[in-house]
Structures are given as C-alpha cells and as structure tokens.
C-alpha cells in the first residue's frame, strides 16, 4: 500500500532548486512573451513543494483579472522592497539590470502609481510657488493657486507612465517573434521600470522652487542622466541581439521621450506662469 502511494506523489526535481538568477527570468518570460499580455495569471508552472526558495515564492496563485485577488498580487510588496527599488532606480550600477536585481519577476503597481501621483502634486505645487516667488512684490500680481496645473500635469505624467511602456512592450514583443532574444519583459515589468525611474524627478522638481535658471536646468539634466541611464541599461539586454539599427533606434527613442517629458513639463509650466501673469495684469488694469 505504501509503495503505490509513493508513486503518486510528486517527485522533487533537483535542478528546480538550483536555478541561477537569469534562468527564471528567461524561462518564465519566454513563455510569457509567447502567450501574450495576460500571461501572469495563467502561468501555471508545475512546481510545488518547498516554497522557501525565492523562485518558487514568486509563483503566484493564478487569479482571473476581474477578481480583486489579481490586483492584490500586484501590490504584494513590503516597505523595504519599495525603498530598495526606488534607490535602485536612482543609482545606475553598470551590470545590474533593474528588472533582474530588484523586480525578480514580482513587479508591483504601488510604486508606479504613487510615484506618479507624488510627481503630479510636486509639479503643481512647485510651479505655483516658483511663480509666486518670481512675481513677488509686484502689485498687479494677485497670487492664486492654479488648479489647472494639477490636471494638466496628471494627464501628461500618467499617459507617459502607461502609454510609453505599452508601446515599448508591443514593439519588443513583435521583435522577439522575429529574433530569438534571451531576455524579454512582461508589460507589468516595463510599467514598473518606468514608474520607478520617474522617482528621481521628485527632488529635481522640488528644486525648481528656487528661482535660479541655472539650478533648474542643472537639476533637470542630472535627473535625466540618472534615470535615462537606468532605462537604457534595463532595455539593452532585450534589444542587443537585434539588428544594430533597430537597437540604436529603440535606445534613442527611449532617451528622447524621457528628455521630452522633462523639458516639456518645465517649459509648459513656465509658459503658463507667464500667461497667468499677463492676463492678471491686464484684468487688473481694466
């Protein structure tokens, strides 16, 4: 009796516990690249048993995307993990891929969402404060908090944080079908990378309050370099096996979009400040 019971037990495979850091990303993401967007919850890897190894603990219970549990899996992070991810997105270390080191096939949506929300309010508040400080002492200027800045900044930042990863993911998946790349990322991982890479802009935007043109440009450029290099180093392994032209095109488009976001926000805010000031002075004179 006991022997027949043993035959029906699941047998542990030794090589399941000796995976390297690259292999789980490779094998899981290759399958996920083939099956498409909603692969995360249907990825039933037939491994059970010891949950203590990190690879096995990343296997989430599958839940369809219309249940609450699916979204709960996306928020399965601790405070120190979020802190580590923010630090990792700000300090680019050559050779350390953000996705592999920090995400480890457990992307979360907490970071991207709240970093974007903080950035939106930081832009609105620092824009208001900088315009207030610039026009202080001038009698025609009546300070009003401009609420439209919030909606405008929110639209810009949230669309950047969601539409650009979508486009990039579509492009990378399409290229992966043509070339056999070893590394491919899921949509949530790309959203996660972009979300955390925006975190460096928060201190840069707060420095905008100081009305010094040189300091503003300096902070923007430094933030651009840091987060841009993190992005480039993350996506380099995914595109390096492709034709060199495509690789360069993808990399430069990532960088250019990043630059456009930073410069666009700054210029737009300053234009709005000037327009507000002119309109106010005209209105007061009437």
């Amino acid at each position, binding site marked *: 009796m006991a022997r027949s019971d043993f035959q029906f037990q699941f047998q542990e495979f030794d090589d399941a516990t000796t995976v390297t850091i690259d292999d789980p990303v490779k094998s899981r993401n290759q399958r996920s690249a083939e099956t498409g967007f909603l692969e995360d919850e249907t990825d039933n890897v037939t491994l059970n048993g010891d949950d203590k190894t990190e690879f096995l603990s990343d296997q989430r219970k599958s839940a369809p995307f219309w249940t609450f549990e699916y979204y709960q899996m996306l*928020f399965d*992070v601790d405070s120190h993990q979020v802190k580590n991810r923010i630090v990792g997105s700000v300090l680019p270390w050559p050779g350390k891929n953000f996705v592999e080191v920090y995400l480890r096939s457990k992307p979360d949506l907490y970071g991207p969402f709240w970093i974007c929300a903080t950035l939106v309010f930081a832009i609105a508040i620092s824009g208001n404060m900088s315009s207030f400080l610039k026009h202080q002492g001038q009698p025609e200027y009546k300070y*009003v908090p401009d609420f439209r800045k919030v909606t405008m900044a929110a639209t810009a930042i949230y669309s950047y944080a969601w539409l650009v990863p979508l486009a990039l993911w579509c492009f990378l998946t399409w290229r992966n079908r043509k070339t056999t790349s070893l590394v491919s990322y899921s949509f949530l991982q790309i959203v996660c990378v972009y979300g955390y890479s925006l975190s460096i802009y928060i201190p840069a935007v707060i420095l905008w309050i100081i009305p010094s043109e040189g300091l503003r440009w300096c902070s923007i450029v430094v933030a651009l370099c840091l987060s841009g290099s993190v992005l480039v180093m993350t996506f380099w392994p995914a595109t390096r096996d492709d034709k060199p032209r495509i690789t360069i095109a993808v990399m430069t488009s990532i960088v250019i979009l990043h630059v456009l976001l930073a410069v666009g926000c700054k210029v737009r805010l300053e234009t709005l400040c000037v327009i507000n000031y002119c309109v106010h002075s005209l209105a007061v004179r009437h």
Partner: protein
Amino acid sequence: ADVEESSKPLFAGLSDISISEDIPVEGDISVPIGSQNADNDLSTLDEPVKDTIMRDLRAVGQKFVHVMYPKKSSALLRDWDLWGPLLLCVTLALMLQGGSADSEEDGRPQFAEVFVIIWFGSVIITLNSKLLGGTISFFQSLCVLGYCILPLTVAMIVCRIVLLGSSGGISFAVRLIVVTASFGWSTFASTAFLADSQPANRKALVVYPVFLFYFVIGWMILTFSPSR
C-alpha cells in the same frame, strides 16, 4: 452478536437500527422574540424626531471628540457613519471655492473640485490599503479619513478669520503655523486608527498616501486667498 457489539465503539451499530415503532416526537418550536427587541423597534418609531436627530448628532460629536484626542479606541471603527465626513467636506469645499464674481482666469478650485478631491482621494487611499492586505473595511476607512479632516477644517476657519484682519507677511506666518499643526494632527489621528489594521512590514506604505492626501488639502487651505 453481543460480543461484537461490546467490542465496537459506542453508537457503531446505530445505523443498523431500524425504527419499527413510532416513537412519538413532540415538542414546541418557537423562536423567542425578545421582548426588548420589540420594544426597541416600537420605541424608535414612536420617539419624537428631536430624539432621533439628537442621537445621530451625539454620535457624530462623540467621534469628533475621538479625533481631537486620538487614543487607540475602536469606537470610530465600530460604529462608522458618513454624516461627519459629509458635513466636514461640504464645509471645507464651501469655504475653499472660488467665487463666481471673479474673472474666469481665477484658478481657485471650484466646489466640485474640492469635493471630488476629498472623496476620490479617500476612495483611492482605502483601495490602496485594502490591496496591501489591510483588514479594515471599505466604509470604516472612509469614515476615519473623513473624520480626520476636522483639524484641517478648523484651520481653514482660523485662516479665514486671520485673513479678515490682514493679508501680509505676519498673517502668512500665522496661517503657515496653524495649517502645519493641523496637518500633522490629522495625519497622526488617522494613522492612530488605521495603522493597526495593516501588516507590520507595510505600515509605511499605507501611511504615505494619507500623508500626501492631507498635505494636498493643507496646501489648498494655505494658498487660499480671499476674493477682493
């Protein structure tokens, strides 16, 4: 047969028994309707309207006291209600809104915008805490976040009174101190109620959105300037 029955455990052979005779089963099944329940139902229907309103007002007032002196009591969480948050939200939005007499370029938030920010923000924070694995229910969390706007509403009233007097640098300093103090009070009060329902390694993740929420409301109060 007797030896077998004695070696088996008790009631083992019960399934073999067949009832050949009618065993009379009789009794009385009645649901005891507690006399005090009936009295309560009748009493709240028959009581004067003043009593009903006073009871609700007293509950709201009691929760205000709990917010002003936040202790780790569960009274706010147990008997949640949304009257208090509605009252506070409407008061704050009425005081913050831009007057219609001003020009259209006045970027002050409208009544609807303040209302939407407060309620939408509370819903998002509640969803966030539930997604992170909190044990608090949806409406309990809304209730706590709404009631903890009370210090900021008081600060808004103080700011308006200060602005009636002057709008120079000293009034700005006074308003800054008042708003900062009330913002700290609100955040501290709400975390005193909410933090217990979260797993220990995620408390910071839940407290930060609450901090951001009250910071934005405090910012709107601080930058309020009266219409001429």
